[in-house]
């Protein structure tokens, strides 16, 4: 097909009609904004390529749609990452692929069937094309306006010490400027909350996420730092949360770095890229689903990473060093995929008298299943331990 530039744009925008409607429907059903953002980005990337690159093609055979589609997908995913749109890879590819198939069916069959001279007109659709352009612009514009209106407010925490506890009860983005410190903790009791670049000192728990039985979701703790909390550095109950690039430094005693508990029905939480130091346990997941990855845990007194009590999840690419008792623990009927971790220097806790605390790099306890793959266990008192009906499987 030899498209004119106008034909390319009209065909693309008319073909976007169904994906835009679909994205709106998903956005309402979830509710979430990523489908609309994704479709808007897809259209934007496509239009940009139409104008800047594709228009040099005097003729475009049908099969070109495959490589050009892959280029568009690649650029789209780069934008998704750069703009930090929270969408799973599968969902993004699925939506793109669906829209691509719709556009191909329309370009090869639908438009030529509906418009007598579609190919002859270089893909131009006349009034239908203008109407489609109008619809897409209005639909995306309306969605954008609603999105803008519903975006949670951003609260900036000025540099200096703020006396806590700070209690968040509405959706918002709390951003700390350099040197912003909250003394006495932060309590989050709402969904759709982002806390970014905030340091917390002291408090019973450093950051608490707990909204009671109704639970919370869409929470992001990004680059937070918690020092000196008396119990938990980050304490999460009945919530789905993403904790990213945090620093938690716990004092000696019955303290824990990060504890996500009783959230098995809330979906998968993520702890990624955190540095956790000290405390009795570093990262604890109890009756919850979690991805624990790329964290560094050191100097804990009992277990560095603990996935416990019918939890399920992935523990991967973590670095555990110089801890007492157990490096990575999978306990109480949990199912843990433990892959590509580096555990070193785990020491035995002889004074405890607990045989399960004798310096195991990885331990499976009480009917739990630990699936191991690619872990590096170096200089631990004992590499792997299995207790009370626990099971370890080595993946091929």
């Amino acid at each position, binding site marked *: *097909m*030899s*498209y*004119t530039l106008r*034909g390319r744009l009209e065909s693309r925008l008319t073909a976007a009609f169904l994906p835009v409607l679909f994205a709106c429907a998903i956005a309402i059903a979830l509710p979430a904004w990523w489908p609309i953002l994704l479709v808007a980005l897809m259209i934007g990337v496509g239009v940009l390529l139409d104008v800047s690159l594709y228009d040099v093609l*005097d*003729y475009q*055979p*049908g*099969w070109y749609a495959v490589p050009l589609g892959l280029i568009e997908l690649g650029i789209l995913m780069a934008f998704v990452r750069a703009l930090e749109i929270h969408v799973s890879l599968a969902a993004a590819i699925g939506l793109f692929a669906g829209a691509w198939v719709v556009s191909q069916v329309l370009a*090869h*069959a639908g438009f*030529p*069937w509906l418009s*007598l*001279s*579609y*190919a*002859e*007109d*270089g893909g*131009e659709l006349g009034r239908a094309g203008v109407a489609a352009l109008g619809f897409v612009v209005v639909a995306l514009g309306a969605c954008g306006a609603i999105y803008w209106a519903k975006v949670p407010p951003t609260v900036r925490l000025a540099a200096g010490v703020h006396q806590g506890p700070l209690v968040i009860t509405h959706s918002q983005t709390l951003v700390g400027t350099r040197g912003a410190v909250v003394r006495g903790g932060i309590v989050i009791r709402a969904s759709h909350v982002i806390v970014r670049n905030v340091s917390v000192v002291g408090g019973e728990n450093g950051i608490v996420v707990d909204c009671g039985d109704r639970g919370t979701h869409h929470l992001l703790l990004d680059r937070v730092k918690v020092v000196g909390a008396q119990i938990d550095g980050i304490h999460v109950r009945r919530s789905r949360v993403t904790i990213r690039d945090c620093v938690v430094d716990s004092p000696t005693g019955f303290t824990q770095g990060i504890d996500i508990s009783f959230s098995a029905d809330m979906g998968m939480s993520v702890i990624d890229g955190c540095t956790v130091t000290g405390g009795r346990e570093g990262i604890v997941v109890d009756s919850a689903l979690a991805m624990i990855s790329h964290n560094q845990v050191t100097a804990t007194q009992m277990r560095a990473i603990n996935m416990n009590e019918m939890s399920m999840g992935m523990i991967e690419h973590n670095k555990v060093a110089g801890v007492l008792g157990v490096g990575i623990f999978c306990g109480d009927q949990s199912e843990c995929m433990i892959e590509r971790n580096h555990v070193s220097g785990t020491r035995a806790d002889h004074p405890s008298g607990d045989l399960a605390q004798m310096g195991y790099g990885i331990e499976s306890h009480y009917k739990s299943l630990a699936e191991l793959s690619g872990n590096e266990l170096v200089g631990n008192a004992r590499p792997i331990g299995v207790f009370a009906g626990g099971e370890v499987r080595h993946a091929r």
Partner: protein
Amino acid sequence: MLQAREPAIAATPARRQVAIVGGGLAGFVAYLTLLHGKVVPGDITIFATEPDPAGAWRRRANAIRQREMRSESDGHCLPRSFPGLAVRAAKQQGLVPLALSICNRYHPTIEEFLAHVDELREHSGWDTRLLLRRVARARPVDGGFALDGHGVFQHVLLATGHPGLAVPAELAGDSRVVHAYDPHEYADTVAIVGAGMAAATEWLNALAAGARVTSVRRHEPDRRPLNVPRDLFSRRGLARYHATDWRERAELLERLLGPSYPPGRMWDEPLEKAAHAGRFRIAGSVDGEEQVICATGFLDAVGHDPLLTALVRDHGLETCRRRLVLDDDSTVPGLTSAERTLAVAGKPAQWAYPAADTLVGMKYAARGFLRRVIACPTR
């Protein structure tokens, strides 16, 4: 066998709506396009010399033993480009024709194309609208055109086809000469004059028949999949083409419509093998070959087609290098107005659309004609 009947043309009103002069593929495509545009069949009259719209085309394809269409899936007579012949073939052969079509590798066989024409002919009521008469004059009158003694028609499409086979003057009267489009067999030594698609087909035919072949050509052929570059089939290339002045356009047409045939091993390999064996050579003129096959196309309409020649002569229509000068929508300037249309389809319409003698080109003229019929204020 379908029999053409006299269409039931009412005695009144005296002025009938639409006439198609020519019952070949261009006329057939125009008729189907008009039906698609909801023009009432009773308002259409077709003047033809034979009932089969593919009759002439079939004879020529048989003469050169053509097996496949040069055109791709779009090369069909339906008004819409989709579903094309690849979809039709897919119903019997599965997804392969569709996959080939997406890669521009699907070429329907002659049998498939002709079966498709026969189906459309039967289902469209073509034969009921036919008037088996030759029209020699189209005379502009108030609100239309008088076609010989057959009445006045408001909108007329001239799809008169090729006026005859072209043979180079220096070979006229030579007893060895046969035109490629006339039925023929092959002698032991054959000179094939021309270098287009028909000539290329004849090279392979003659070689397959065991002949020694001399390709006589003045110009080296272009190797391209279709008659003209692909962008000239759509507005993308046509916008540039239509923006040219007369001189530029005439030169462009000379270049575009020079000899060409598709690239590909199916053409090259047999020729290379034959050349290696001394059975195929290229020469600038005919020598002592037993048989001379002229694959030299058709006579120009202006000067040879009685109807078009009379129009040009009687109404001072513009021509440029033997080509009729037309408006971009294939209508005849000066004789077409808001109330009436005189349009041209097929090879004589190349001034408006370089690939006018292809099925896609015939549709271009037909769609332009339909737009004018629909826009007519009396409808």
